[in-house]
Each structure stands twice: as C-alpha cells, then as structure tokens.
C-alpha cells in the first residue's frame, strides 16, 4: 500500500534534436540524483520516459528512480509522430495505473512532460483527444515544452496544465538543461505537496530560456 504520483517524460527524438540530445540526457542524470537524495520524493513518485520519432517506445518503464541504476538515454532517430507518442502514453498510463492499483497503491493524477522541437508530420488529433478525454479517469496533466521550429499554437494546444516555448535567450543546450531542471523541481515540489491542496501539481511559472504561453481566454 503506497501513494504514488507518476511522472512521464514524452520526448521528441527526431533528427533535429541531434545537437541537443546530450544536454537532455545530462538533465535526466541530474534528475535521478536529485530524486534519489530526497527520500520523501523518492518514496512516492515514479518516473517513466517515452521517446518518439516515427514511432514511440518506452525508454524507461515507470520506475522508482531511487532503485534505478541504469536507464536507456534518448537517441535521435527519424520523424515526428505525436500521435504515436500520445497513443503509447495513454496505453502506458492505463497499464501502469492498473498495475499500481493491483499492488494496492493509491495513484494520483499522472503528469506528463511533453517536449518537442518540430512540427508533427503525422495526424495526431485523434490520439490527443483520447489522451485528454474527460471521461478517462486517469487522464494526465500535460505540461508542454516547445523548442526550435515548433509551432507555438500547437504547443499551447497540447499543454493542459502549462505550456512553454523556448525564446532563444539562452543556447538550446542550456534551455534543455533548464527544461530538465523544471521537471526536477516539479517532481520534487509536487512529490512533497501531494496532500491537502486543491492543486497538487507544482510546475514553475518561469523556466529560464522559455516563455510561458498564456492560455487564451474563452
């Protein structure tokens, strides 16, 4: 019986990420160290990584980071298939939540950090709608980060909690490092603020190198 807050990073591995993939992997390494040194966070967060290009694959199954000693890093591959990423994310969340519950865990709403640097070259709306379907109980809060040539409107559409785009104020590598830092902060702060609050997810409003896209008023 445990209480668990699952975090997923869904990360673009298309060729255009080539120059920046090392910065991102460094960030993942630091994330691991930060979570591993905080027993409060380590005890109740789980972390998984999904990479996508022409297709999507699970790079790190939803894990207790303090028990992970090695993980598959990100590597550049082909195109940009958001739909495959969203579809796999929904499948993965369904499977993970079912398994956690079977183990007697209380599961908090999952959080997905989505990072992309380019335009999707496949249709993705159907899979996205399924991911945010309000009738699906385990739908994740999505924090979207755009980068490089990404279309701002697309990123704003994808983030259900917050959306950010790189503003070129710092180098792409440094910005990706900040992305990983924001992810770490979100995990640590949300992992220590899971109770009592009406808002559990704590994502910084300011991420160096990025500008937050304001949700359009209806």
């Amino acid at each position, binding site marked *: 019986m*445990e209480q668990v807050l699952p975090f997923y990073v869904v990360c673009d591995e298309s060729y255009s990420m080539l120059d920046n993939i090392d910065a991102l992997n460094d960030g993942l*390494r630091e994330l691991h160290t930060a979570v591993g040194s905080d027993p409060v966070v380590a005890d109740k967060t789980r972390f998984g990584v999904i990479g996508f290009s022409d297709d999507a694959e699970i790079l790190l199954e939803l894990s207790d980071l303090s028990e992970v000693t090695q*993980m598959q*890093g990100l590597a550049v591959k082909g195109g940009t298939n958001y739909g495959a990423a969203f579809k796999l994310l929904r499948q993965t969340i369904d499977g993970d939540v079912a398994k956690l519950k079977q183990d007697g865990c209380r*599961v908090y709403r999952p959080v997905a950090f989505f990072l992309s640097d380019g335009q999707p070259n496949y249709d993705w709306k159907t899979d996205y709608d399924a991911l945010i379907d309000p009738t699906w109980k385990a739908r994740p809060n999505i924090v979207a980060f755009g980068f490089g040539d990404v279309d701002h409107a697309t990123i704003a559409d994808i983030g259900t909690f917050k959306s950010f785009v790189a503003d070129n104020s710092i180098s792409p590598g440094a910005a990706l490092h900040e992305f990983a830092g924001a992810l770490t902060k979100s995990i640590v702060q949300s992992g*220590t603020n899971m*109770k*009592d609050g009406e808002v559990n997810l704590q994502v910084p409003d300011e991420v160096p190198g990025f500008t937050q896209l304001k949700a359009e008023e209806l």
Partner: protein
Amino acid sequence: MTDRRLDLATPAPRAAWGDREGPWIPDTIGRTARAAEAAWKPDPDPRFPDTVLDHGTVGDITAMACAARGAKHRFEGTSREDAAIAVEAVGSWALAAVADGVGSVHDSRLASEEAVRVFARYMSRRIADSGERALTQGSGLFGEINRALGKLTGPKTTLTVAVVAAHPDGTGRYPFWAASVGDSPAYLISEGETHGLLIAEREDEFGTATAALPNHDIANVFKQIRGELLPGEALMLVSDGIGDLMASEGPQRYFADNWGLVPSPLDLMRQVQVRSRGFDDDRSAAVLWAVPENADKAPSLRPSAAMKPGGPVVRDVELSAAQTRGLEVRAAAARGAVAAAEGRARRSRVSLLEYGDRLVAIATAPVRPDAAEAADLWARTFKETADNRPLLDPFEDWWAPRVWTQALRSLSEKDPNFDSGAVAATILCVEPASDGMVDYTLSHSAGLSASIAGAGLHRELAELRSPEHHHDYGEHELWIYSDRLAEDQTLLLTYGIDPACIAEADSRPGPLQTFDVVDRETGDDDQFMVAVWGAR
C-alpha cells in the same frame, strides 16, 4: 538508432538515526518507507513540538489523543499541521478531536490547534449548561467553531470530534455523538473490526481536495452521527495521514488488532507512526474506549475547564527530537503522578529554539505546589528575553547571566510577587564544534539535575567541575557552566526523571525510547528532560 545507456549515480546510504532497536521502532506495512527512516529536523515553531499526547480516563472511558509530524515535515524541518486533543467535561463526558491543517494554506497549524481547542471549550460549556442535550446541538456548535476559525483569516483545517458518556445508560451502553467537516474519518472498533462512521468520499479519486473550516457553506459539509458504545468498543478519530492508510486491508487489520483493546501510551504513539511508503503526512488519532474495568486506573483525563483562553493547549506529554548541523537533541515534558491522579494540566515546560547554528533549550518546572503558573510564566519570559537579546556570541561569559537577570527583572515587573525560588529553570545553548563535539553554555537554578553521561554512567556537573559563574540572587541561585562535550558524552538536564534511565540506555535513545523513559517515571512532580549529543 543508437542505443545509449545512462549510467546513474548511486544514492547515498541512509542515515542511522532515531529509534533503531527494541520495542520502540514503529512497525512497517509493506515496503521500506525510506522517508520515515530519515533524520528529523527541528520543529520551526516551538509551540508545536513534534509529538503531543493526551491520555487518561474519565468514568468508564479511557481516551488517548496523539498528533505527530509526518515523515515529510520531519525531513523538511517544517511544522506539524495536525492537532489532537482528549479532555473530560464535568466528570461525565470524554471529549476528543483531531484536526488536519490544510497544507496548501499558510500557518494551517494554527487553525487545527484552534479548532480542537475551541471545540473542547465550547462543547464542555454547552455540556455544563444543558447536559446531554448538548449532543443534539452539534450544527450550532460547529457554526460557533466556524466563526472562531474565521477570525484567523487564512488558515484552514478539517475537524472531527466525538463526545462519549463516561457512565453507562440504563442499558449498559455509552451514548456518543461524533461529527466532522473534511476528510478526517471516524471509525467504530468493535469485536476486532473497524467500521466507518464518518467517511469522506473523495469526488475525484485522483485528487485530494477536502472540505475544511472555516467554510461559508458549513451546512453542506457538516456531518454528524449519534450512537452508543457497548463495553469493549471504541471510537477512533484519525486525520487522513491514517485515514488514507485505512483504505487498505493491511492497515485496517493493523489498527483493528492494536486498538481493539487499550494499548499503552507508548504503543499508541508508536502505532500512530506506523510506516508505509509514500504515506508521509502528519498523523493524528484520538481513540475513546469504553472499558469499565479501567475505571480506577490513573491517570485521569484533564478537565477542559482547566484550559486557558488562547494559545496552543498544554498537552499531557510533548516530545521533540532532531538532528541538525552537528547536533542531536531530545526534549520531553510530561505530567507527574500527582497531576495525573488529580487530572490537572502539566506545569513543566520545555522548548527547543533554533537561533542560527545554535540550539537553545529552555525548561522549567515548579518545585513547589503553590507555584502552579510560575513555571509557565518563567518559560515564556525566558523565551521573550532570549528572542530579544541578539545571540551573537552566547559563549561570551555575559550572555547567560544577562538573559537570566533581564528575565528576572521582567518577571518581577509582570508579577511583583513572583517567587523565582519556586521554579527549577534552565537555559541551555549548544553549538556544534569540530569532530562531533559540542560547545555548550548551561545556566540553571537549583532543584534540577544537570549531568554528563558516557559509557552508561552519569555524574552531576557540580561533582565534575566548578561552574564558570555562580550568582546568588537571594531568592534563588544560578550556576553557569561553559564547556565542550566530547563526542561520546551526553549532556542531560532532567527534572522529576532519574538521569540514570537515559544514561544507562545502550545507545542514544530515539524519540519513542525517550518517551518510554518519561512514561515509566512515576514520581509525583511534572517532569522535563533535555538530552544533547554531537551528531554522528
């Protein structure tokens, strides 16, 4: 596709800290809860010590109420936000409450403490005025509590309360009333099973939002229930730190098995802190057992009429423990046998304060029965004086005597008849030195034990060495020692507790072992103890 493996850092080994042996280690349900094993940082607000406990009987009812910081607040060094209380009213009713300060709002510890305090005051007044009929006026009572909490302007809390008749009705049953706002549930424990009485259904199974006080729509969130306890049954009120655990079979079994019969206060305090991975919220429980055969056993529950207006309520037991920047400390205060038999409030005081790198412990206890309020007044004045004196270098000779003299002066201004000789008082200031050693300046009056312990033995400081200063104020004397504590030594300050009980422990007593020492002490006087080591 290139396959990359990221090699990751190995996590640091866990610190060895706290209760690590004997009957003092909290049980673990499921996998190791690493957060629960981590060292505790000091409580930032000394009015809210890590763990508090009320326990005693009134009529046929035995009640215990314990609130303890959860693993998260202990690891972070933030305050406990839960509160719990158990008192009696007019010798005929047991009152108990738990409250869970809402974590997303600032200073919510003030709201939970105020909620249980005003419940005890208002309810006992209603019972004194209208007897059992007070149990039919629950929504009016909660309206009053709601208004009182509104005056705090900000902090919010859940509140779950119960009142049980101390004597059986004509059918041998004990009528009770229980009520709540928010997600702190109430259970009936009967024949080895727990049954939910007031259970908050979460609307969003993935969320955590809860109703809380103050609330503008209290009629919609207020829930109450009336019933009767059979002899051998118990009512159990808990904050969601335990309530969330109760969603699973293992913990349900655990509490049903352990709290079906009255546990020892030590066991209740330990079981409140049962470890389960990811459950790091504050824990509080108030349990009321109908056990006629316990009737004559001490201690007696504290009467709610003895509560003073304002401020945190003085609980029967308070306990703090921490490891911080090269120092390790325990502090506890508890009622002695006379107070327990009479059912009066504890008069000894202990508080731990952090001033930068230094820890200051202030402890006082009345040495004469006529000095009922003196120890509290002295403790408060010491704290005010210390807060106002820049503690730039407390190891300068002047600091301790100056604080002491100034405190005495303001005491006589506050109360011209103040008799400083009626109180055993001490101020200890400690600071880490190199290699696990500790520099200390200790000032103390007559009447308490100040000793150095090591290798299972202890000696009074006065037998070991001469004080740096000795002042004779006429009505009382002051001794000041400034020295360095070696890494294998313990500095012990006790009143009403035999220092040998701590000195003879196999290793540093953890928090629960410290409470065990205090709980075993059967002397007449209200007690305190402070123990300090260098951090290992």
